[in-house]
């Protein structure tokens, strides 16, 4: 899976209260959440991301709360893939479950500039910026299976014979 797009760049420790503030968590509608993505840090994010973008960021992107709306909001706002130096564990899983791919790339914020157009191979982790080829860590194994299935629930339906009712 190859994904291409212009870069919106952020720093280290972008937390989930930045990605989607708690006051919006009483809803799960992607279109509503998209309008408030990254609101405290970048109120123009929704407009900037709407044509499809690659978010590049520093360390522990998505740290903090377990709110799955963080993944839903970014994806619905137009984020096609996130390339960060590292990810918080819960956020990583939430993105996989919501079909938003992520690449771990050390020095991502040093190698990539705001506005660069990057080409990302989701499985190998290769990131191309102009003539430069950067090697990150792609999505593999269990996480890749879940991403391809369309999230953990669809994955469960495929791999197990979980009854759909009863209780």
């Amino acid at each position, binding site marked *: 899976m190859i994904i291409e797009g212009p870069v919106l760049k952020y720093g*280290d*420790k972008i*937390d989930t*209260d*930045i990605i989607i*503030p*708690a*006051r919006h*968590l*009483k*809803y*799960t509608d992607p279109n509503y959440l998209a309008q408030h993505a990254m609101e*405290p*840090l970048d109120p123009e994010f929704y407009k900037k991301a709407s044509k499809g973008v690659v978010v590049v960021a520093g*360390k*522990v992107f998505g*740290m*903090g*709360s*377990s*709110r*799955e*709306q963080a*993944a839903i909001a970014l994806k619905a706002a137009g984020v096609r893939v996130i390339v960060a130096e*590292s990810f*918080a*564990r*819960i956020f990583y*899983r*939430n993105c996989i*479950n*919501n079909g938003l791919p992520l690449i771990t790339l050390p020095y991502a914020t040093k190698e990539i500039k705001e506005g660069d157009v990057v080409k990302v191979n989701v499985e190998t982790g290769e990131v191309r910026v102009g003539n430069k080829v950067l090697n990150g860590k792609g999505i593999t*194994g*269990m996480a890749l299976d879940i991403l391809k299935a369309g*999230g*953990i*629930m*669809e994955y*469960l*339906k495929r791999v*197990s014979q*979980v*009854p*759909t*009712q*009863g*209780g």
Partner: protein
Amino acid sequence: MTGTLTEKILSRASGRSVSPGDVIEANVDIVAFHDLTGYHVIEVMEKANMMKIFDKSKIVVAFDHLAPPPDVRSAEIQVNIRKFVREMRLPNFHDVNVGILHELLIEKYALPGQVIVAADSHTTTSGALGAFAQGMGASDVAAAVITGKTWMVVPQPFKVELTGTPGKWVNGKDVALKLLGDFKADYFNGMSIEVHVRNPKAFPTDYRATVSNMGIEMNADALMFVPDQETKDYIKTMRGKEVELLTPDPKASYQDEYTIELEKLEPLVAAPYSVDNVKTAREVSNVEVDQVYIGSCTNGRLSDFQMAAEILKGRTVKTRCIAIPSSYEMFKQAMEKGYIETLVNAGCVVTYGTCGPCLGGHFGVAGPGEVIVSTSSRNFRGRMGSNEAKVYLSGPSVAAATAATGRITDPRDLQ
């Protein structure tokens, strides 16, 4: 197999001998959610048409984030979850009058050696009793509710040793902030921290719960205290139950180790806007404060209120001060000890069992330009309300001393 607590718990839960880096499917002992994530968990289950629960006795539900409901949508969320609980006949349901989920887990449910997953990041709190406890998103928790299993990567174990006895005004918060200040918020990503307490009674379960709670702020996969006599005594006192302890092998090998000498710690704070922006309280003692919040799943327990009451006894607060014991049980015990009366007489606003102010929900949201000192766990921009508010995190002693003077105060400097 090197015999760390992490490996022992996850080997038992997955039915095979595991090592760091392995991808495993673990059986879970408890799956939990609260109101603000619970409705989302149920939505995921409904959308997938998988309304099945692996074991009703292992599901725990508590209303805390929207408790009591501040608006119609919050009330609607609770109405819908109550209906789900009724239809599924879930026995472990706690309405708005019982307490914060993570506090209820350690008071009533969590046991050493268990695997616990819940739809809230502060699930790490149950690590205080030696459980491998992780927060997850709504989809992963829905999957665990249905199957009783979850997939995970076995983390790298890191050992922290606590030696000695903490000073009078130091508690679990200062240990958590010490680790965050020394290692920064990204260091423990992909690791499980196992804390060994040299002198178990010097660092009680209340303190341990604060440190485990903030394991998620360190981005650790789990933060567990090696269970000991204190763990046994706590569970015996709270539940009248004798428990078995699962402990690491004496020769267990860790990726690295770090020792904290408790008597050398002094009251710390995390300054805006990051949990690892750690300073001593004295370094920021000139900062004027508008509101103090004492409570949350981080620092809302009896010992926290004991410290706060000792400082505020006979004083009148000079800031707004909101005090929220984390559960009915903690509130009741604090009332019996006279702490609640002391706080009310000092001018605090007191309720119990809501997460409200910590996440900028209700019952004390921060306004533009305001400075807050809070015993909760996060000081991210906008976390407690306005983007233009500043939050300093501290333990209860600094919070209460600050309420008494109107500026950030190390309790040792109180007149």
